[in-house]
């Protein structure tokens, strides 16, 4: 579903992502791990179109989306969350979510000024969608609360819901469990699994190995912008290059 070929991104002299090729399958959970500054978030930014690659190609469902504008890519069905959660703190959770479905609506200024039927229908649709996704992430009961007042973990879920409100095929999650305690992390993992069960493909960055290892179907490891390994969790756990660059070895521990 997502096919990356020789993707490279340079910031000045620094190659944040360098010559990465990878295939992500539909309906799977794909993980990206790697040390801090390895280029994981940059990789996401490239896929989501937030920044343009220096070299290489990105194909999504057979379509070349390299260098396409962010919002078009979103309309094609790629949604994302950010490493630091961004929400509109001064409005309610539900109000935050309604805009998530905006990209599936047609209303223009004119509709707004005359309050057309189309607008009313679409607003209803957006609200319904917002309620759906809120329910999906298990937060229906806090829809009316101010976003500023909800907990860190709830915000992460709201961010998920916001991504889901765009009706995506593929969701990119950047450190969804960052700053979340182990107990909640497990619940979050369950939620991610549920997303996949509902037909959304997930791609996630995470430093929490327990979570990754139990969740991912496939893992790609980045280091210094380069792909140093790719495979199933078991393969990755055993991979000496990965152990050296990222995981740290048990041998070290034993020695």
């Amino acid at each position, binding site marked *: 579903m997502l096919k990356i070929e020789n993707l490279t991104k340079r910031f000045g002299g620094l190659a944040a992502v360098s010559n990465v090729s990878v295939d992500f399958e539909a309906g799977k959970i794909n993980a990206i791990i790697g040390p801090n500054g390895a280029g994981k978030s940059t990789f996401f930014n490239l896929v989501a179109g937030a920044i343009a690659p220096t070299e290489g190609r990105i194909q999504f469902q057979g379509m070349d989306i390299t260098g396409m504008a*962010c919002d078009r890519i979103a*309309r094609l069905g790629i949604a994302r969350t*950010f490493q630091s959660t961004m929400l509109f703190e001064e409005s309610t959770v539900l109000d935050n979510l309604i805009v998530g479905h905006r990209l599936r609506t047609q209303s223009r200024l004119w509709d707004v000024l005359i309050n057309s039927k189309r607008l009313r229908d679409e607003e209803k649709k957006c609200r319904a969608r917002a309620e759906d996704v809120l329910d999906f992430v298990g937060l229906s009961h806090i829809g009316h609360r101010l976003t500023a007042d909800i907990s860190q973990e709830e915000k992460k879920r709201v961010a998920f819901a916001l991504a889901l409100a765009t009706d995506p095929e593929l969701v990119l999650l950047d450190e969804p469990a960052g700053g979340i305690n182990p107990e909640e992390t497990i619940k979050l993992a369950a939620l991610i699994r549920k997303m996949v069960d509902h037909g959304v493909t997930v791609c996630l960055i995470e430093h929490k190995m327990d979570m990754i290892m139990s969740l991912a179907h496939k893992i790609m490891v980045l280091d210094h912008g380069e792909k140093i390994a790719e495979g199933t969790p078991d393969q990755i756990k055993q991979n000496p290059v990965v152990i050296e660059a990222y995981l740290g070895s048990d041998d070290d521990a034993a020695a």
Partner: protein
Amino acid sequence: MGALQKVSGFIMSPAMKMLLILLAVLFPLAAGNEYQIYVMALAFVWAIAVYGMNIVTGLCGQLNLAHGAFFAIGAYTLAILTVDNGWPFWPAFVAAGAMGALLGFLVGVVSLRLKEHHFAIFTLCVGFIIYLLMDKWESLTHGTLGIINIPAPHGFGLVDFTETTPFYYLALVFLVLSVFFASRISHSLLGRTFLAIRISDDLAASLGINLMRNKVLAFVLSTTYAAVAGALYAGMVRFIGPAEADVAHTFDMITYLLVGGIGTLMGPLVGTLVITWLTQSLQSLEEYRMIVFGPLLVLLVIFSPRGVVGSFTAWRARRRAAAREQQARQTASEKVPPQAGASSIKKGAGNHA
């Protein structure tokens, strides 16, 4: 429900809106003299422009420092068309709005590529260029002499808008329309779109929102508001000069917006009225009133950063959320034994970790 809550509930209700409009309609009858009506009408005109600024700055988060210049563009378009080209008032009025939109589009397309302070200072410069053009382009704008004898809005033989009270009602109608459209916009999908851009460009773009198109739209809306207000202003004061485009006006409008509450629906109006009447009542201090007004502004910004309306709505929203929460908790403990839903609420409220 406490009395306080009842009052605050009422303030937000549709009945309140009707009451406000009624008060506004009755104001000329209650006003001690025509001067007060005149000041009120002028404040309404400014408020319309401030509503425009609220769209681009309050909702969409782009600080446009050329706003005063667009106000002047509206005024000049009307003045030039009526005085120099013999157009009747109302067609010229429509043209003024259209000119605001057109120039807003051109300026927006160029300037919205910049972000934050750069955008702000860039528009400051655009505003200054517009001012200088009005000052220097004599063959079109009459230069520093300004344009005199601008006709008042045409009353079709029914009303005489050179009179203060009829003009007051005209301004009121336009104000109500402006607030109505502003409220439509801010409560609609479009307003939510703008809001998403204000939180973060990246977030908005990742939600499939075309940044440029929406920002330009917000910008054009705001300049149209400004131009319409400017045209009304020209029809009221009936003389305009380049000083109308001075940045000081833009800063005045930002002040109104901030005092009333940026990003709120009633903030622009409340802020404009508060400051207008405050300035009028400080007139007795004459040239020294800035000594009072300056520090007042500073204190306000420090101690009431959300403005009058913003502070009120934030306070109310929080209370309502708390009330609903309590309600939810009660019903939960009454009906279902503390299961999934209820327990996680508690957790959320009590222990955020």
